[in-house]
């Protein structure tokens, strides 16, 4: 009995859940079966990964190899970095399935068979991506992940936007995967083995000799992962694709799937590609791309009036923070290990925190959709009266993503800001690069305020204000949906108040992935139970500190003072109507909708260049190609009509026919059995040469 037992068992439960949910057509039953299977999966995976983290060891195993075909074998490597991601997958997937159980009833016309199997397959392939140690199987799992998520994007296949978003997602990610495969083929031609260690060896040879080739390999790897992570300008597909699936699936997309691209980036740049000037320059490029998408993505999010689309733009912006941390870390790793490792830790910590609050916020949007049938911020308001717990969790999520202390977003953003501005201390760097990193830090501080603005808009226009009376008839939000949100909100709060646990986890994850001698944890982070301080060089006093526990003390003491003051004053209370300046209005007449928020600022960042309208620095309504092209090119450039819709319809028909086969199967089971046994009998009779 080895350590992998729990892993196998949990993956087995997941596959069992996927297979069982194919056969069940009743939504609540399918949801319940998937929930049970996912619960067992999460328990097993948590047990496995916590075991791995506690012992702080690397577990390695070869499962099987396909040696005659390719020099590749399915080998598993679980170190702290993988284990951290496994924990995230376990928590988020459990919350997502718990939420889906009742949530899917909103989609009355759709069968759960088109949802749960793909969701389970998505979880399975995510685990696969995190644990494999072989490029061939990595690409295999990566592709399964992309395809299963694509099926979820086109869940509502009759909606034109869903198909469009799905098509963009399909094409963009497959171009990216093509680059990944290209670099894999190049690497295989050098190393003749797909194993990461062999690739790492041959890469160090390539990096020594071939300038152009090594840049090309790093370029195609970065492009593949940055596209999947949704970094602008390659992430143009993300705001169109993420809002389309049911909110629980969007929650896993935004919380985990796009973060797995960041995992891949970390894994390749830390473990596979040896540290060199190449990784340094690509670190700078990654940081620049990150800041670009922080800036454009978040300002574009401010102009959105649809909750899930707003959150999708924030997914772009937030991934930028992680890439800023990781890029700065890669750049400074060889110059000043203290700043480098702090930046890498900050990036990974932000990833962990982000996966919690991002999933939470998408689930909040799902609750709103469940209750009201829309996520358009202009059409909803005052939901705190019907869903108070969801409101509170949404407030926690909004404040976390904006990085307000003492929630978890603050911890990681603090480390990213300080390590990015800490570039000033690295004396070996060019002045221009130092300045660039400091400007990156300042931009991310500024954008943090914009994030707050756009989430206060989401919060205020959906939960606050007068409630419109049209949507009270809908059923109440089920306790399982609320519970999954409360779990995530509590994690946000606790990891914010006690950052030391997650900080230590991420630090160990980074050090286990890098094969260099690095400064000790206690040399960089001066920690106690209450918080931490950061040292930016050896033997110097701590540069930045954050002890969240004092927030509780001060808030407690001061609230006690002020509430006792109010009690002493004993002001009488009375309920009154809202005052509209002396006029009688119905609430609908004077509602301040989500679209009206920040109008002057939105006008400042909206402009027009030539024929392209920019709204929040993000192009909307790109001009179509209708200059002087023959019609067949236009037809070709619009693959929706000649390729995609027929193809998607065919896929749906295949599903319908499979569905019918299942239905007929049970009735004609005995007939099949008889026919089959006759066939087998004939075959055996034939093989034995006519002699019984």
């Amino acid at each position, binding site marked *: 009995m080895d350590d992998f037992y729990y892993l196998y068992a949990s993956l087995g439960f997941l596959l069992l859940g996927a297979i069982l949910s194919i056969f069940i057509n009743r939504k609540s039953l399918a949801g319940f079966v998937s929930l049970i299977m996912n619960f067992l999966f999460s328990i097993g995976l948590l047990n496995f990964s916590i075991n791995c983290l506690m012992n702080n060891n690397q577990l390695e195993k070869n499962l099987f190899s396909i040696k005659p075909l390719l020099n590749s074998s399915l080998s598993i490597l679980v170190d702290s970095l993988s284990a951290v991601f496994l924990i995230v997958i376990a928590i988020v997937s459990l919350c997502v399935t718990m939420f889906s159980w009742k949530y899917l009833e909103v989609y009355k016309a759709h069968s759960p068979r088109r949802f749960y199997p793909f969701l389970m397959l998505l979880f399975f392939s995510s685990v696969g991506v995190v644990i494999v140690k072989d490029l061939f199987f990595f690409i295999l799992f990566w592709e399964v992940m992309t395809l299963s998520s694509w099926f979820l994007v086109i869940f509502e296949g009759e909606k034109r936007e869903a198909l469009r978003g799905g098509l963009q997602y399909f094409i963009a990610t497959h171009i990216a995967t093509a680059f990944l495969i290209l670099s894999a083929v190049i690497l295989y031609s050098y190393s003749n083995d797909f194993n990461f260690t062999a690739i790492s060896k041959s890469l160090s040879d390539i990096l020594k000799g071939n300038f152009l080739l090594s840049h090309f390999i790093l370029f195609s790897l970065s492009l593949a992962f940055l596209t999947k992570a949704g970094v602008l300008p390659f992430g143009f597909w993300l705001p169109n694709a993420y809002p389309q699936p049911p909110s629980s699936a969007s929650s896993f997309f935004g919380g985990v799937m796009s973060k797995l691209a960041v995992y891949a980036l970390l894994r390749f740049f830390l473990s596979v590609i040896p540290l060199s000037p190449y990784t340094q320059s690509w670190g700078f490029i990654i940081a620049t791309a990150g800041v670009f998408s922080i800036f454009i993505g978040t300002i574009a999010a401010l102009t959105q009036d649809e909750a899930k689309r707003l959150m999708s733009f924030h997914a772009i912006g937030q991934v930028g923070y992680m890439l800023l941390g990781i890029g700065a870390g890669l750049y400074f790793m060889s110059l000043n290990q203290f700043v480098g490792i702090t930046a890498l830790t900050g990036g990974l910590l932000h990833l962990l925190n982000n996966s919690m609050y991002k999933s939470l916020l998408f689930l909040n949007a799902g609750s709103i959709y469940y209750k009201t049938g829309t996520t358009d911020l202009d059409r909803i308001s005052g939901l*705190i009266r019907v869903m*108070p717990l969801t409101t509170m969790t949404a*407030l926690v999520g909004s*404040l976390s993503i*904006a*990085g*307000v*202390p003492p929630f978890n977003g*603050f911890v990681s953003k603090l480390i990213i*800001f300080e390590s990015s*501005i800490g570039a*000033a*201390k690295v004396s070996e760097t060019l002045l221009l690069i*130092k*300045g660039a990193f*400091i*400007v990156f*830090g*300042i931009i991310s*501080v*500024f954008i943090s*305020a914009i994030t*707050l*603005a756009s989430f*206060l808009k989401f*919060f*205020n226009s959906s939960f*606050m*204000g007068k409630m419109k009376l049209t949507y009270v008839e809908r059923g109440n939000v089920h306790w399982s949906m609320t519970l999954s949100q409360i779990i995530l909100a509590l994690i946000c709060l606790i990891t914010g108040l006690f950052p030391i646990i997650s900080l230590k986890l991420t630090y160990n994850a980074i050090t286990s992935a890098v094969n260099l001698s690095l400064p000790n944890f206690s040399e960089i982070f001066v920690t106690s139970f209450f918080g931490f301080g950061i040292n930016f060089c050896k033997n110097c*006093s*701590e*540069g*930045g*500190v*954050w*002890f969240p526990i004092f927030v509780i003390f*001060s*808030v407690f003491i*001061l*609230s006690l003072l*002020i509430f006792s003051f*109010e009690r002493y*004053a*004993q*002001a009488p*209370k*009375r309920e*009154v*109507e*809202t*005052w509209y*300046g002396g006029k009688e209005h119905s609430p609908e007449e*004077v509602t*301040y909708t989500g679209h*009206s*928020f*920040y109008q*002057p600022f939105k*006008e*400042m960042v909206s402009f027009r260049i030539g024929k392209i309208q920019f709204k929040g620095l993000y192009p909307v309504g790109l001009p179509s190609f209708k200059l002087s092209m023959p019609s067949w090119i236009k037809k070709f450039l619009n693959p929706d009509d000649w390729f995609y819709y027929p193809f998607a319809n065919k896929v749906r028909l295949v599903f319908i026919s499979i569905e019918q086969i299942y239905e007929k199967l049970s009735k004609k089971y005995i007939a099949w059995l008889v026919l089959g046994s006759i066939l087998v009998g004939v075959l055996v009779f034939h093989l034995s040469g006519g002699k019984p």
Partner: protein
Amino acid sequence: MNWSLIIFSSIINISVVLLLSPLFDGFTRKIRAIIQSRVGPPPLQSYYDILKLMGKEDLKSTINPLFRFSPYLSVISIAMASLLVPIVGVNPPFNFWGDIFLFIYIITVVGIAIIITASASENPFAYIGASRKMMLHLSVEPILAIALITGAINADSFKIGDIVKWYHLNGPNVSMLLATVCVFLSLQALIGKIPFDVSEAEQEIAEGVLIELSGPKYACVKWANMSKQVLFCLVFSQIFIPWPLTENILLNILIALSKVTVIIFISTLIEALNPRLRIDQALKYNLTLAGFSITAVFLALLGV
């Protein structure tokens, strides 16, 4: 860690920012009255106002629970921000608690508290005020952040105590002077007084964010606004002009109080002699200033 000093200095900080703020407000009202050739209220009038409002009827236009809590949060967060400003010496009382980013974010929490109060009150005027307040905040926050980051680059540390210590020892250089000027130019916007009081413009949107507040809640938000004025004047005078600083604690407190009085006087002059800006003008002013103040960071990088 000297706990008795920490407790003593935090009590001093909180009482200067919270308890003395109505007195400073009375001072500004008197100056404004003199400028406008009126007699003006007695200097303790703001205390009377707050005490009176505390006992007044509390009108609730909504059943939203956040409406009950968030006005108090604004006062609490100002008190917590005051713990990060040095008054009795070089170090702020809670120097070990957090650094410049914590300070920036606690100021943000003050804004969040008032915005949530406004939007919970369900009044469209309050919504307009909240929207304006957020825009004003996101345009003015970068200026303070850039100025503090300039100090952090100069001092090689993100802690406010270290920045003040460095500044006090080494005297002003070009980058810090530029940062100081930028913070001074954004002081009115930080406080939220004329010409930047767009979120509470009485004549346009009937006090905006405060429209539905009454009784103790109104007293709290009013108190928070008064304390905010003292807090930002303290930030400017103690972090960006940390001279003179002596060994004697009582003398330091006196010096700090007199510096704050001078700065509040200047700020009141600006308030009394200027018209209100429109929100788009305010945004343009602040963002231009923020872009300009990045120069200070580059100068700090060059070491001047």
